[in-house]
């Protein structure tokens, strides 16, 4: 409001310079200056009324005063958020002077102001989504590689952990202790920034895969150990009684029975994994989080973060539903 009043002050022509009254017609100059005065006094509604009394120009006549007064009215209405009336005045001006810069600018401002928030969100999405989706493919690649590595590593560590050989068992205990007991972020930093000083330099992708793989193997190992130990001891005895060795029994009898029980906790881990991949953005990996952060830093558009959040939610939701389905499928042998 203050700004429009100021701009108005700059626009007004000094009253003394105005031409003399033309009889039989309302004096447009008089109306403009009266309106301007009302604006200065803060009586905006009355000012708009005065500006609106300026009649449209007859063809051939100079449209300057008409345009100026309608423009003032339009600005006041815009400042009062009466977008429709303001846009109507802009149209009036543009009918006479289609190239008028002020009217065009105001019309654009009105369009932006009139656009609902959700539409702005969608427009931003259209602009930035391709970049985010491309970055999501890296997130997914990391998730799937870790999902392929960690169950294998986890099972290996779990079997080592339950070994009756104390030395073997302690080695794996130590591994789990380290990787579950320190932050994943620290592990990633150590692998990417720390290992080079020991002569091992990894590119960001290799470092990310290694960090996630080692960390998730440790978590899955503890889950799998719990799964194996939850199987009734009678199963191992029955397997041995038909002549199976320990490893045959593990492979054929014990481990397959853990699958269904493992799906919910392992599913939880993998959902956590989707979110944990955001941590590798700190070691120069461009994935969803880093891409979103880069755009956000450049634009300060908070919707970018919301978009990234939605992509994460879509991924975690798909995982949740898939693991539920998988659990049902693996339980066919149960009588429920």
């Amino acid at each position, binding site marked *: 409001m203050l700004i429009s009043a100021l701009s108005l002050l700059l626009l007004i022509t000094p009253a003394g310079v105005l031409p003399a009254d033309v009889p039989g017609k309302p004096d447009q100059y008089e109306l403009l200056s009266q309106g301007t005065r009302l604006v200065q006094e803060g009586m905006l509604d009355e000012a708009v009324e005065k500006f609106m009394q300026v009649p449209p120009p007859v063809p051939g006549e100079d449209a300057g005063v008409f345009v100026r007064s309608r423009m003032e009215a339009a600005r006041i209405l815009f400042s009062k958020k009466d977008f429709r009336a303001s846009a109507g005045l802009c149209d009036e001006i543009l009918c006479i002077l289609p190239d008028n810069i002020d009217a065009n600018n105001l019309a654009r401002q009105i369009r932006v102001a009139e656009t609902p928030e959700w539409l702005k969100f969608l427009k931003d999405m259209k602009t930035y989504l391709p970049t985010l989706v491309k970055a999501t493919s890296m997130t997914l690649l990391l998730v799937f590689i870790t999902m392929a590595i960690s169950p294998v590593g986890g099972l290996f560590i779990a079997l080592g952990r339950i070994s009756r050989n104390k030395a073997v068992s302690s080695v794996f205990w130590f591994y789990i202790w380290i990787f579950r007991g320190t932050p994943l972020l620290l592990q990633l930093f150590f692998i990417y920034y720390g290992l080079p000083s020991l002569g091992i330099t990894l590119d960001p992708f290799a470092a990310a895969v290694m960090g996630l793989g080692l960390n998730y193997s440790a978590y899955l190992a503890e889950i799998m150990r719990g799964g194996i130990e939850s199987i*009734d001891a*009678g*199963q191992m*005895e*029955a*397997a*041995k*009684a*038909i*002549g*199976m*060795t*320990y490893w*045959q029994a593990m492979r*054929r*009898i014990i481990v*397959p*029975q853990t699958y269904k029980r493992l799906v919910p906790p392992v599913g939880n881990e993998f959902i956590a994994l989707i979110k944990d991949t955001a941590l590798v953005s700190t070691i120069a990996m461009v994935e969803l989080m880093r891409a979103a952060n880069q755009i956000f830093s450049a634009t300060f558009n908070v919707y970018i973060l919301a978009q990234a959040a939605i992509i994460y939610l879509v991924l975690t939701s798909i995982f949740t539903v898939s693991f539920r389905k998988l659990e049902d499928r693996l339980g*066919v*042998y*149960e*009588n429920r």
Partner: protein
Amino acid sequence: MIELQGVVKRFGSLSAVDGVDLDIEKGQRIVIIGPSGSGKTTLLRMINFLEKMDEGSILMEGKEVGYHKDKKGRLVMEKPHVISSLRSEIGMVFQHFHLFPHMTALQNVMEGPLTVKKEPREEVHKLALDLLVRVGLQDKKDAYPAFLSGGQKQRVAIARALAMRPKLMLFDEPTSALDPELVGEVFTTIKNLAGEGITMVIVTHQMGFAREIADRVIFMDNGRFIFEGHPEDLFSDRMEHPRIKTFLQKVL
């Protein structure tokens, strides 16, 4: 065929099995009875190497098997693969069945010959079907254990043990976990096997069954055999042994 000599098993200071000798001849049906905690199950489990014995020896066809002595003279079980191959010749049926729940009845029966003996699948399939017919469960071949009754589970477990074509079958209280109306079908199945001349050692609390099937019955108490002989002698009125007399009075 299989002989136990001076077998001892201790749990801490308690001797669960306290120096017993047992000679199992081919085709014999030996029933072991006795009060709970008398060491019957422990003895059975030692025949199958599921329990390590502390003293004594186990002979198969006259040859000592399964153990050697370390420098201090203590018994040490042989390497797992040796034990596994010994076990594959002895079938065991458990009180709680222990069927593999993630496999169908047929897959349970096929598992041993397939994984342990690595026999060709078609042959094993045929063998397993035959065994399921023998225990009267051909129509349940594709059922998972969770969908079978206790009696049916135990009959599948018997078929699973038989699939390894064992020299000896061990039954560890095969009907103790069953509802009374399901006991009969399992006994009938075991009796049919007995009729086929399969060597078996049965631990049971069912005296009627013991009397009917055994050609030798053993009464075990505090880790020792206090009677070994013909069932008619054990169950006769002339039985004077006070421990046996009171036990039989209670259970019969």
